[in-house]
């Protein structure tokens, strides 16, 4: 019997972070999350509408930071992930997504696989789409499983021959008042401090943005 010390059962299907690189390919850059009413009340601007366009621009930056901090989309975000040749020598092939999914029974925060493509061994190489019958998404492990392995004509000379594109749906956590309150605190900070430098030292208040958001940041194992 071979030495399996330190190996997880069915470890061959679990090869965390076996992607080469990933990039964001689509993100909501104009949709507002906090309402102008919420913002103007927070800033004590109230009925003063003369800065609305500026406030809406700042709101986008605040929302994007909350999304990035939590790794949780408030509006859909799409990614493209590249897998190297080393990740395909397993059976079945399991491709981890750079994603910690919150997928719940309501379908919020879930991952939708848009396409799985590979570079074939033609010259010049062609990016070929894999039929959806050849793969399945595992929402518990946030990975894509290719039960039949990779196509036989996959190009082994291309650095990252497998390309997956997927979209993460909005998460139900985005409606939590505590997360919105953290966003309003951050908003007030950015509104009041528009320069990178100040002469005096700023003091952080207790129960600020980090403390409010920390319980909702997923633990990556």
């Amino acid at each position, binding site marked *: 019997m071979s030495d399996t010390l330190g190996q997880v059962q069915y470890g061959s299907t679990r090869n965390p972070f076996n992607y080469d690189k990933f990039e964001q390919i689509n993100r909501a850059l104009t949709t507002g999350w906090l309402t102008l009413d919420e913002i103007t009340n927070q800033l*004590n*601007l*109230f009925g003063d509408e003369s*800065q609305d366009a500026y406030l809406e621009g700042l709101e986008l930056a605040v929302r994007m930071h909350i999304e990035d901090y939590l790794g949780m989309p408030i509006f859909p975000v799409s990614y493209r992930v590249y897998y190297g040749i080393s990740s395909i020598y397993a059976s079945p092939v399991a491709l981890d997504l750079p994603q910690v999914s919150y997928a719940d029974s309501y379908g919020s925060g879930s991952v939708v696989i848009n396409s799985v493509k590979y570079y074939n061994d033609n010259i010049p190489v062609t990016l070929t789409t894999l039929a959806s019958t050849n793969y399945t998404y595992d929402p518990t492990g946030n990975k894509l499983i290719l039960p039949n392995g990779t196509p036989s004509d996959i190009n082994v000379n291309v650095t990252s021959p497998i390309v997956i594109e997927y979209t993460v749906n909005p998460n139900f956590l985005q409606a939590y008042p505590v997360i919105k309150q953290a966003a309003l605190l951050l908003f007030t900070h950015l509104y009041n401090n528009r320069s990178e430098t100040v002469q005096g030292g700023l003091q952080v208040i207790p129960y600020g943005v980090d403390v409010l958001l920390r319980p909702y940041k997923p633990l990556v194992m």
Partner: protein
Amino acid sequence: MAIKRYENVDVNNLTFSSDAYGQYTTTITKKFTGRPLISSVKNSLTITEKYRIYQDLIEFKFNYTPWMQDVIINQNLYSFKWRTQDWRIESAIEANDRMSVTFICYRNDPATAV
């Protein structure tokens, strides 16, 4: 002791005209409701031989916005309505970082016969 808190204040436009008899009139039109920090409330009442003169001073500290900049530039064309009374701007003091503006205002009731 200063009273310092955020309260709703109406920012009004003033338009001045005179009627057919040559009497000056001031029309007050609400522009928007703001929420400044209100401080240094001071009420004073002077009773002269013939008149009772109210002269109340107050500071309104607003966030610096494009509309507030217009109030700073044309301070004679604006008034604030707070506690149902109309306040005229005596001084507009901009913060050096252009993040806020403090208006020193007074309310000077028309001289009322004692």
